[in-house]
Structures are given as structure tokens and as C-alpha cells.
């Protein structure tokens, strides 16, 4: 084989790699610009709306917002709301996934198809009637009402994911436990759930992240300012407090976003890259 034709594939592969790298870097820069704004402005004593390297770095913006009424109460509210909602979602999903994954029944297929249908309904569309309904049954402006709704809206996807992860746990181990007289609930808690740790983590983190970032649900169902989670209270930086302090808004955004980013990184690392969720969604 002449040397040129042997070299060509390698050279063209390197060229392709460089072109791909260049393309990705352009996209990455475009995606980075808004993110850079929030990070730099949070440390900038006189931030405005442009991305710019601050003349001097300061933590004053964080100092100004790390107060009970501005940051701690809303974050605590978010934690109660999303923690409660996630706990309820994961508990109900784990219970529901067990019979769906373990026992053959004529009900499984219609149930799963309904669940799958519900995963992709636009929840935004039902918020107006949910508001009207909550007024009627006195659940409006209550933490528990909002938690119940959060859990219900997240449940279809949580059940779907949980069932798929549970299918991956071999049945033999439980059969041994059953012959020893363990009930279904016992084998679910003692055997199945511990064996699907990563799957459980994905469902928990995914539910929590979705609720933490949700604006419309608490915006509609809660009214008292003291009960508002960070997703809604962040709007106070506009309007109500007069001139917008962009540095403080950026600092608050950083504080509010950090937990979900850390959680995501935690799960993504355990699953080897962020691609498991993409695969799970794909079906």
C-alpha cells in the first residue's frame, strides 16, 4: 500500500477531531456567557447587566443577602417543600414499583401505559383549575397542599424510572427471603431497595431538582410571603425593592442554584457521566 493512502485516514481523523473540538468550544463559549455573568456579577461590587471582569473582587453581595428574611427563610421553605415532596414521591413510587416489577398481573400494562401518558402531560395547563380546586377545598396557601401536588405531578415519572431500575434487580434473592417467611414489604425494604441504591439516588435527586427549580406551582398555590420558597422569593429583587441590585440578585442566584448543581454532579458521577438519565428518558 502506498504511504499516502495509509496516512490519509489518520490525518483526516485528526482533522475531524480538531474540527469537532473547535465546534464544541464555540458552542460551549456561547452557553458559558450567561453563566459567566452570574458568577462574575456575584463577586462584583458594581455589577450591571454585561459580562465583565470586576475591577475588584468582593463578598459584599453575599454579605448583603445572607440574612434570614432574604435568603435563609426562603431556602428553608424550599427545603421543607421539596424535601417533603421528594420523600412522599420516592416512598409512593418505591411501593408502587414493587408489584409492577415483581408480579404478573393483567393490571400492570394499563397502569404503566397510563403512567407513561401522565409523565408527559403539560402540568402548567392544569394550574389554573388546581388553584380553583384548592380554594374550594381549603388547601390553598398550605404547605401540605403544595407538597401533595408536587408529589402527584412528579409521581408518574418517578414510578416509571423506579420500575425500570427495579427490573434490574434479580428476583432470586427475594425468593430466598420469601421462603424464609419475609413479607413483600420486608423484602422490598431489606433486599430490593438497598440493591438498587444508584437507581434510588437518581429518582430522589431527579424529583428534588425538578421541585427545587419549579416556579409556577408554588407561585400559584402559596400566597403568604413568609411561606414562599426561593423560586418565588427571588422575584422580590425586581420591583418590590426599588432599584435592582444586580450583584445581589446574582449572589442569590448562585446560593439558590448551588444545591441542585451539587446534587446533579453527585448522581452523575455515580452513574458514570450524565448520560444515564438520557438513556432512562429514552425508554
Amino acid at each position: 500500500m502506498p504511504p499516502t493512502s495509509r496516512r490519509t485516514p489518520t490525518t483526516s481523523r485528526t482533522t475531524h477531531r480538531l474540527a469537532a473540538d473547535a465546534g464544541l468550544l464555540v458552542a460551549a463559549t456561547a452557553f458559558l456567557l450567561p453563566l459567566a455573568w452570574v458568577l462574575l456579577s456575584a463577586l462584583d461590587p458594581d455589577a450591571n447587566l454585561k459580562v465583565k471582569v470586576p475591577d475588584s473582587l468582593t463578598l459584599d453581595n453575599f454579605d448583603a443577602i445572607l440574612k434570614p428574611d432574604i435568603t435563609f427563610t426562603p431556602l428553608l421553605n424550599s427545603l421543607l417543600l421539596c424535601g417533603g415532596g421528594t420523600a412522599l414521591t420516592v416512598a409512593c413510587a418505591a411501593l408502587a414499583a414493587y408489584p409492577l416489577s415483581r408480579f404478573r398481573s393483567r393490571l400492570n400494562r394499563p397502569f404503566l401505559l397510563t403512567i407513561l401518558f401522565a409523565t408527559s402531560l403539560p402540568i402548567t395547563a392544569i394550574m389554573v383549575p388546581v388553584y380553583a380546586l384548592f380554594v374550594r377545598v381549603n388547601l390553598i396557601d398550605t404547605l401540605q397542599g403544595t407538597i401533595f401536588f408536587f408529589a402527584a405531578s412528579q409521581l408518574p415519572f418517578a414510578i416509571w424510572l423506579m420500575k425500570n431500575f427495579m427490573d434490574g434487580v434479580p428476583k432470586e434473592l427475594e425468593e430466598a427471603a420469601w421462603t424464609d417467611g419475609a413479607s413483600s414489604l420486608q423484602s422490598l425494604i431489606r433486599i430490593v431497595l438497598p440493591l438498587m441504591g444508584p437507581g434510588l439516588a437518581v429518582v430522589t435527586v431527579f424529583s428534588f431538582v425538578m421541585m427545587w427549580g419549579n416556579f409556577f406551582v408554588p407561585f400559584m398555590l402559596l400566597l403568604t410571603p413568609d411561606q414562599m420558597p426561593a423560586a418565588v422569593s427571588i422575584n422580590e429583587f425586581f420591583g418590590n425593592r426599588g432599584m435592582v441590585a444586580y450583584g445581589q440578585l446574582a449572589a442569590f442566584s448562585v446560593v439558590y442554584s448551588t444545591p441542585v448543581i451539587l446534587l446533579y454532579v453527585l448522581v452523575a458521577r455515580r452513574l458514570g457521566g450524565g448520560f444515564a438519565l438520557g438513556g432512562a428518558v429514552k425508554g
Partner: protein
Amino acid sequence: MTRRSLVRILPLTPATLLLLLFLAGPIAYCAYIAFTDLQLTGQAHESFIGFDNFRTAFGDEAFLNAVWLTLVFTVVSALLGQNTLGLALAALMQRASKPVRTLTGAIVITAWVLPEVVAGFLLYAFFRKEGTLNAILDWLHLPTQNWLFTLPILAVSFANVWRGTAFSMLVYSAALNEIPKEITEAAEVDGAGGWCRLWHITLPMIRRSIATNLMLITLQTLSVFGLIWVMTRGGPSGKSQTLPLFMYEEAFQKSMIGYGTAVALLLLLVGGLFSMIYVRLLRTEV
């Protein structure tokens, strides 16, 4: 049903109760309220008015405007933006070096994981008159403009691309990883060029992922509220008012809960239709 099978389906009850009370309940209530004249305040009892709300809607310029803007928003930001860019990024990632791939993935996914309202603020700052985009255009000696006033629907569409592309990227990365290397290599040896391979091999092999992805991002885009609310409040004068924002304004700023719900029901029906197609696509896997 035997006692044993009853015990077996018992664990389904908490989830089923929650779903019935807080999801199916509101949907049924939605279907009822949409045919009444329920208002926010000062009304003892709503009365049944048949299809009046829907008749009003189809004669309402603002509603038709919202339908049109929802269509533009969905096509531009989901079908053209997120889908194409997500596929392009996933395809480039197959060839790129590992550090660049990891870095790009991390940045794009961060935009996706950020809370919706925070994403809204970041893009608001980006598109404002004094914002980053105009600063860059200025630096390149290109004409600047007040994007959120002149082209608000385009600005919020780009915002949705920024926020949502990671999802398509993840779906397509997973799909592309499943294509056996031998197939693409064989095509390469046979002299098939890059575009030819994309069109005749890659795309047909991931067509199920494409269909699933298009369904899901359409549904996600139909329910975007917070992002647009933070950036433009649907304004100026309704120029970025998609259906969710229109529905909210009718129900709460104009107190017409019945009318707002009728619009919500239409949105829900469109969503339900897409959802049904999605279920049909995945039916074999249940």
C-alpha cells in the same frame, strides 16, 4: 379477585390515591370549569355556559395571537433549536477529544440543571439593552437593538434553546453510543462522506430516539411559563405571550377563571394528543 392478588396490589394504593386526588381530580375539574363562567371573586355560584368560553376564545384576537406565538416558540426553540443543536453537539462529541467533550457537556448541562427562574434572569441580563449580547454586537460593530422589545418571542425562544438543549444532547448521545462502530466504519471504507453517512446511516438508526425526543421537548416547551414570565411577562403588549401566559393573565389579572381554564383545557388536549403518540411509540417496551 383472590385475597392474594389483593394483597399484592396493595402497595399501589398510596400512589394511586395521590394521582387520583391531585392529578386526575384537577384534570376532571378543569374539564368542568372550562364550561362555566367561574370568576376569581364576588360570585356565589358559577353557571354552566356550554361552549361559550371556546366561542369567545376563537373570536379573541389575543387568544389567536397566543396560539400563533406558541407555535413559533415551539417550532423555533424546540424543533429547530434544541433538537438540531442537541443532535449536532452529540454528534460532535463522538469525535471530539475527551477534555473538550467533558467541558462542553458540563457547561450545557449546567444551563439545564439551573432553576427555571435563575435561567430566566441570566437570559434577561443577556438580552437587555445594556446586556452582554449588545456589548458583543457593539464590539463587532454590528447594529444593536433592544431585543426584549423588538423581538421578544425570538429572545425567549433562544432562552429556551439555551436552557433545554442539554436534554436533546443527552438523549442523542445515548442513542449515538448504541450505534455499532463497525457500521459507520464500513461506510467510511466504502467511501461514504460525512453528510451521506449522517443521512443514510446515522439518522435512520436513531429515528426512534428522534421521534421520542421531538415529542418530549415539544411537551416541555408547551408548558414553559417561568422563563418567559421572568424575561418579559409576556409583553410588550402580548408580543411574547404564549398560551400558558395568556391563560394565567385571563384567569388572574382579568379574574376570568372559567375562560382561562377553557384555554388550559385546549392546551391540555394538545398535550394529551402528543402524549398519546409518545405512548404509542414506546408501547412495545412496557
